[in-house]
């Protein structure tokens, strides 16, 4: 690869890019410039227009107006192929590799693959892949199937694909990292950050993340989007995290109160679990949560907390032990029964388990607990819309269109709708939350957190599997630590104040 020193000419320049989807004005006159060797941080709430902007850069959407210049030349991306040919590569948030193909094929995919009359030249393909991999310091075997790789190695393949040697016309690739860290472990994040620094020598990077500390640490310049506009473009050293938050959300961060409700001595817990076990997953788990209290469960991969949470909702079986709701032991625990007893579950796999794509937001909200929207089997659209509109206002869902297909909303707004679906129940007694903040921007996270607190103070017992230990310590009235399927520690936050280190010690 020839790296031209082109720090004067911009690698990419967007001028007055505008994009509408029906009533929604997704991008308003966005102009920006990226220079060779720069790492740009792109931040904004869910629905601020980041995804639309990225999709325009990758040729998936075409702008209604405005122009794109690559290496000083005006270009049009009619499809992903044009964008790839211009040297723009993406590392997606959710990994986007063909797991049934080899590392080398994945790196080559989309660009010219060495072949003669359509017949693959495996030797050449593997050599080119090895060369690209060596640029990022990886020694993966190009002929391995991706399904055999670990998560971090897969991310390496994604990065290699994004910078693949032969596809770059001007010699300066632009790599877009779309929230790559949201699904990474801490040590893996460190590896990724090292990669970003290496990439600077070869091209430019757009780094999208919700974690402001990461953005501050890795980027030369930070661009903030809000409501489809680019509201700020700052050199990193001139801003603080608090300023960025304010620029993104449009208001100062609100303080979250953290008073703990005290439980009377003879009060019956809403949910109590005794000696719950499932072979190979968890064993002898006992816990109880009272009305208005939040129990956070922390644990690393394999601690069994996900399986436990799913069992509480009746989504997975357990082998022995018992679950009691309001003092009565449950039998034949299934999802349908759990829902009837007021148990709600916000799953980690939102798109697969939490929502019905293709249904409108309003339909999703009233799916499980229709309230006044249905009498028996008959649905009343007007009543349904009224309920949905109330929730949209309460949760500040954007775009404010209850009839829009839920799949079209951004992640954070989808999560708000999924929350609303359960909060719409008048009999909500137990709220089980599996990573409710995963992939959410700070603003949406705050809204969801406030709703959790509200549900809690309205008398629900909440069980939270948090993304981070800080979240657990901040939200929990009780914090339970699980290790290898067993409870290794329980902290009563009204009496103790453990540090993240205390939790970590009991996790590993």
């Amino acid at each position, binding site marked *: 690869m020839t790296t031209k020193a082109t720090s004067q000419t911009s690698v990419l320049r967007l001028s007055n890019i505008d994009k509408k989807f029906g009533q929604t004005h997704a991008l308003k006159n966005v102009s920006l410039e990226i220079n060779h060797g720069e790492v740009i941080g792109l931040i904004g709430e869910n629905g601020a227009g980041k995804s639309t902007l990225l999709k325009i850069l990758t040729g998936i959407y075409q702008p209604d107006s405005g122009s794109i210049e690559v290496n000083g030349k005006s270009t049009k991306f009619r499809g992903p192929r044009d964008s790839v040919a211009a040297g723009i590569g993406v590392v997606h948030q959710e990994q986007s590799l*063909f797991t049934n193909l080899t590392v080398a094929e994945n790196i080559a995919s989309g660009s010219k693959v060495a072949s003669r009359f*359509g017949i693959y030249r495996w030797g050449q393909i593997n050599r080119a892949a090895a060369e690209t991999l060596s640029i990022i310091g990886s020694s993966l075997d190009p002929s391995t199937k991706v399904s055999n790789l670990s998560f971090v190695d897969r991310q390496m393949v994604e990065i290699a694909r994004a910078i693949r040697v032969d596809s770059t016309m001007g010699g300066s690739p632009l790599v877009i990292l779309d929230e790559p860290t949201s699904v990474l472990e801490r040590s893996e*994040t460190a590896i990724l950050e090292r990669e970003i620094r290496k990439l600077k020598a070869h091209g430019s990077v757009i780094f999208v993340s919700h974690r402001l500390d990461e953005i501050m640490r890795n980027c030369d310049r930070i661009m903030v989007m809000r409501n489809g506009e680019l509201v700020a473009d700052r050199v990193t050293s001139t801003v603080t995290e608090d300023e960025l938050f304010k620029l993104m959300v449009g208001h100062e961060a609100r303080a979250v109160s953290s008073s703990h409700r005290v439980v009377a001595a003879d009060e019956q817990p809403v949910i109590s679990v005794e000696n719950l076990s499932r072979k190979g997953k968890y064993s002898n788990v006992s816990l109880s949560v009272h009305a208005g209290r939040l129990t956070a469960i922390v644990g690393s991969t394999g601690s069994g907390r996900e399986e436990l949470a799913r069992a509480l909702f009746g989504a997975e079986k357990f082998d022995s032990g018992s679950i009691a709701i309001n003092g009565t032991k449950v039998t034949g625990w299934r999802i349908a029964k759990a829902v009837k007893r007021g148990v709600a579950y916000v799953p980690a796999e939102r798109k697969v388990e939490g929502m019905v794509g293709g249904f409108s937001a309003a339909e999703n909200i009233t799916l499980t607990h229709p309230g006044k929207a249905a009498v028996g089997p008959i649905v009343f659209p007007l009543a349904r819309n009224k309920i949905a509109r109330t929730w949209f206002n309460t949760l500040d869902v954007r775009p404010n269109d209850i009839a829009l297909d839920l799949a079209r909303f951004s992640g954070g707004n989808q999560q708000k709708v999924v929350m609303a679906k359960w909060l719409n129940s008048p009999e909500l007694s137990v709220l089980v939350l599996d*990573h409710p903040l995963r992939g959410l921007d700070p603003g949406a996270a705050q809204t969801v957190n406030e709703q959790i607190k509200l549900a809690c103070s309205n008398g629900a017992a909440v069980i939270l599997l948090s993304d*981070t230990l800080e979240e657990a310590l901040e939200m929990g009235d009780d914090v339970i630590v699980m290790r290898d399927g067993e409870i290794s520690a329980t902290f009563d936050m009204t009496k103790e104040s453990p540090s993240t280190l205390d939790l970590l010690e009991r996790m590993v």
Partner: protein
Amino acid sequence: MANPQSSATNSVSVDTAAIHFSDKKSKASLFSRYTEPLALLGALVVLVLIFSSLNPRFATIGNLQNILSQAGLPLIIGIGATFVILIGSIDLSVEGVMGASGMVFVLMSANSRGGTDFGPWAIVAGIAMGVVLGLVSGLIYTRIKVPSFIVTLGMWYVGLGVATILFGTESIPTLTSDELAIWSSQITLGLPNIIWVASVVLVLAALTLRFTRFGRVVLAIGNNEEIARGSGLAVAYNKTLVFVLAGALSGMAGIIATMQLGSGSATVGSGNLFITIPAVVIGGTALSGGKGGVFGTALGVILLTTLNNGLILSGVSPNFQSAVSGAILVLAIVATAWSQRDRLRISK
């Protein structure tokens, strides 16, 4: 805590994404890579043992050749079906295409109605009929985005209709050459001709999947069509090509079936769809696409043909034959799919 985002500072991520992937990793280990074909071979051996004990005529060279001749047609069709299923689609038009192609072949060969004998061009024309029908299916499927299930269901009857129209109202066209009629079951080097043809197709198909851009793109589309499109691959083009290939192979099968029958019939292909699609699935090709291959299909076809042959030889009453084969098929598929059960799996 003041800011939600400041809580993310120095956060210790206890994320769990990795767990999903470690599962997949173990499934793809070297050991399990061979368990599926080995299980199929095991099932085949068990079948052979059972049927041999029930009827001494089962385990004879003659019957083996018989089974292989019966396996020829489903194998040729099954290879096309494997490609279609690898991209996550389905082709139900097989029998209709066979009828139309077979009819074209008969009418262009020396037959009892007279007319011109085009010789080998009759075969080319028959396959071309399959190509056209496959192309139409593929284009409607990819351009108008109608589910392949519906498009090919319609094309099935379109094919039957084309054959019926070509047939017209005259007498049944019968092939006058006896050589053609017995060609497919003739033995060359110990094996029936049809199985030689099928083997050549099988090897070519396997090479295509492993070594050509088309084959790799088929696998990529089946794995994740969205990513394939995002990577700039020509998704619609290659999907259409898959239906053209399937059409051509169905056409070929229609011609051979017509040779075997000795005369033109719109329903020459009947019964073939029923065995082909289950054979592909039993052979390890996932209905969701992206996983599988043609050798598995070959094993699946042999297994099901052996089963049918064995049931007849063991004296299962013809009245029960169809119910028994149906039930066994469902059982076989359940057994095959058992290992792929998944919490998040949704079947439609």
